[in-house]
């Protein structure tokens, strides 16, 4: 036991002290937030000035609706003919627009087109919309512009036109303002858990979000630390220390020590991030509260939190041990990387089981999936927050899971020892099985 602890201590101290750990702890959240922020920033970049769009409204009714549909209900100033000074405003969706109403009366459409085309060529305009007289009935308008491949702007204009013409058709059908507003009222679907009399209205969705969050953190830590476990197991082979160690410590104790040591490193890193995030969130919540908004803390039963913790650990360990097993079979980290690829695939598949299990948490499919160690963590958590299965099922799932962890580690340690005696031979899977038996 003391030797096992010595291994744990070495793994932990060496790794936490390493520059890599400190750098990744600081850098990863930064990179992640950059991934969140950068796309938003890029999308909000206005390359160049706002789109200047002239509107030829031959129906004489559409311009106001269109303007409102494009810019929303804010008070606005009319951009009169030839008055381009109106401030550009953000349309719904992407891009900025400046609308300009072109008087359509007393001029033939050809004349208007000629003038506008000239202005297009002179780059005074970016495009113009023509709504012909019969537009309200047949719904066909024209958008002449200099850059037909700008799909975003086209789509924004189209959807604004859609809303505008719908509004006008309802007016024409003598539907009053109030009824029109009611017609566009969005529905609200509230989920209420059966048998709770509406008390647990919120907990369903928030638990679900939590399960999803836990699954995601699990996925992330496997992605990050699976390779570390693999590397740790291979380390003694590559540096040829294994034989010295095995004259002092049992292979199983060594393997478990490594697994636990690396896991503690992972826990440390997650805890640092978790604390930083909660500090941030608390600050953010306070900030929101100060502005009169209330962030609700999801009301989840305490027992669920315990299950969350247990199944998170199970998920982490079951995959980490498979990495350890792979590490015991190969001689270099590169080989290990290749052999470990399918693990990620299995992880992703087990993650997607989320959907069928949440649809029918009581089915026998869900039952079996929540018993198989590789898929149990996510599947069982989904079942717990949807229709909590009987306790014996939860206990059995945990038992099978952690039992498998020990079994895999035991096999891995035997494969490891025989592999070392064979001097740098990579094990095929049948060989590994034979080694595990004979060692």
């Amino acid at each position, binding site marked *: 036991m003391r030797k096992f602890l010595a291994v744990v201590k*070495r793994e932990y101290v*060496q790794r936490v002290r*390493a520059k890599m750990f400190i750098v990744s702890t600081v850098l990863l959240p930064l990179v992640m937030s950059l991934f969140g922020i950068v796309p938003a920033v890029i999308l909000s970049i206005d390359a160049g000035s706002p789109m200047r769009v002239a509107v030829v409204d031959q129906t004489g009714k559409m311009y106001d609706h269109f303007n409102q549909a494009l810019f929303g209900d804010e008070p606005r100033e009319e951009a009169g003919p030839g008055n381009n000074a109106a401030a550009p405003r953000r349309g719904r969706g992407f891009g900025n627009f400046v609308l300009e109403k072109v008087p359509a009366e007393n001029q033939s459409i050809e004349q208007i087109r000629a003038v506008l085309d000239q202005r297009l060529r002179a780059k005074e305009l970016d495009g113009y919309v023509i709504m012909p007289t019969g537009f309200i009935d047949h719904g066909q308008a024209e958008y002449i512009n200099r850059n037909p491949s700008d799909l975003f702007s086209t789509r924004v204009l189209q959807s604004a036109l859609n809303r505008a013409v719908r509004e006008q058709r309802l007016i024409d059908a003598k539907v009053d303002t109030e009824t029109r507003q009611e017609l566009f009222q969005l529905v609200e679907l509230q989920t209420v858990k059966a048998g709770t009399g509406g008390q647990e209205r919120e907990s369903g969705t928030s638990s679900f979000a939590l399960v999803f969050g836990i699954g995601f953190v699990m996925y992330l830590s496997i992605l990050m630390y699976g390779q570390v476990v693999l590397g740790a197991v291979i380390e003694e082979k590559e*540096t040829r220390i*294994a*034989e*010295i*160690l095995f004259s*002092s410590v*049992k292979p199983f104790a060594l393997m478990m020590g490594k697994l636990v040591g690396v896991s503690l490193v992972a826990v440390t890193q997650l805890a640092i991030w978790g604390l930083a995030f909660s500090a941030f969130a608390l600050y953010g919540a306070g900030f929101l509260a100060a502005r009169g908004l209330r962030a609700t803390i999801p009301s989840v039963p305490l027992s669920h939190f315990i299950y969350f913790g247990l199944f998170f650990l199970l998920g982490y360990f079951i995959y980490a041990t498979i990495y350890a097993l792979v590490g015991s079979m190969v001689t270099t980290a590169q080989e290990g990387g290749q052999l470990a690829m399918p693990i990620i695939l299995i992880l992703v598949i087990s993650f997607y089981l989320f959907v069928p299990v949440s649809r029918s948490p009581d089915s026998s499919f869900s039952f079996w999936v929540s018993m198989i160690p590789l898929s149990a963590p996510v599947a069982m958590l989904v079942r717990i927050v949807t229709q909590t299965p009987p306790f014996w099922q939860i206990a059995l799932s945990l038992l099978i899971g952690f039992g498998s962890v020990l079994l895999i580690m035991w096999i891995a340690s035997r494969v490891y020892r025989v592999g070392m005696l064979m001097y740098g031979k990579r094990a095929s899977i049948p060989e590994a099985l034979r080694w595990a038996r004979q060692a």
Partner: protein
Amino acid sequence: MAASETTVKLDGVSKSFGDFTAVRELSLNVRAGRVFGLLGPNGAGKTTTIRMVVNITAPDSGEITLFGRKIDSVVQDRIGYLPEERGLYRRMKVVDQLRFFAELKNVRGKSVEARIDEWLARVKLSEWKNKRSMELSKGMQQKIQFITAVIHDPDLLILDEPFSGLDPINVELLKEIVLDLKRAGKTIIFSTHQMEVAEKICDDICLLNRSRKVFEGSLRDIKSSFGRNSVAVRCEGGDGVLEDPALVSKLVRHADEAQALLAAGADAQVLLKRLIDSGAVIGKFEMVEPSLNDIFITKVTEPA
């Protein structure tokens, strides 16, 4: 400790890997307080034998006792093992590694720090204490590896090719340390295929060839059993005499002298007389013991 006490005892030990038998029916006794040489060509079964002694692998049949008991983790902590395949954690400081290896032998606390300093001073690496091992030269690393085997003050020290790749000065340094440990009453098993080294430090030897024991006993006994049937000669002329198969069964020429193994029934006096008669000028004519190397080659090539 009495010299007759046995530290390691193997009794009819066999070990095979698949179809390959690495060690066959091996019995031997390693006496306490002596240097025991486990000799043999590559692939003779030396390393497998050692691995069974240190409990890395178990024999298929036969029995191994250490310090009079079957091997367990308590006994394991009394062994210091320097395998042929050895290395260090590249990114770990020298002092941290030594402390870790001591902990794995259940030795910890303040005494360890003192021992680390003492050993580093002894191999002249004190100023490297806080360096990572990747910064050390290969020879320095090898000396650190040696310390990992002795840091917990083992009663039995097993060294598998400890001097390979070391320069003569460091070989001498480690050899002195090994002999010091022997004087301190430790038992040492020394495995090598370099006979010249074994000849200088071993008290007892066991010769292995093709997974079998060829010979076991004290170095003295082996040498005297072969007798003084070799002659070191330095002379000018007389080549025809030295190459006479009736007198000399084997002739090995070195830079300035030759070693002649006398043919069965041949007399050294006759050889000397014939040389003088042939008009050779003799600079040296000395009866010598066969080298361990000669014995080894004779034994290994001898039909079983």
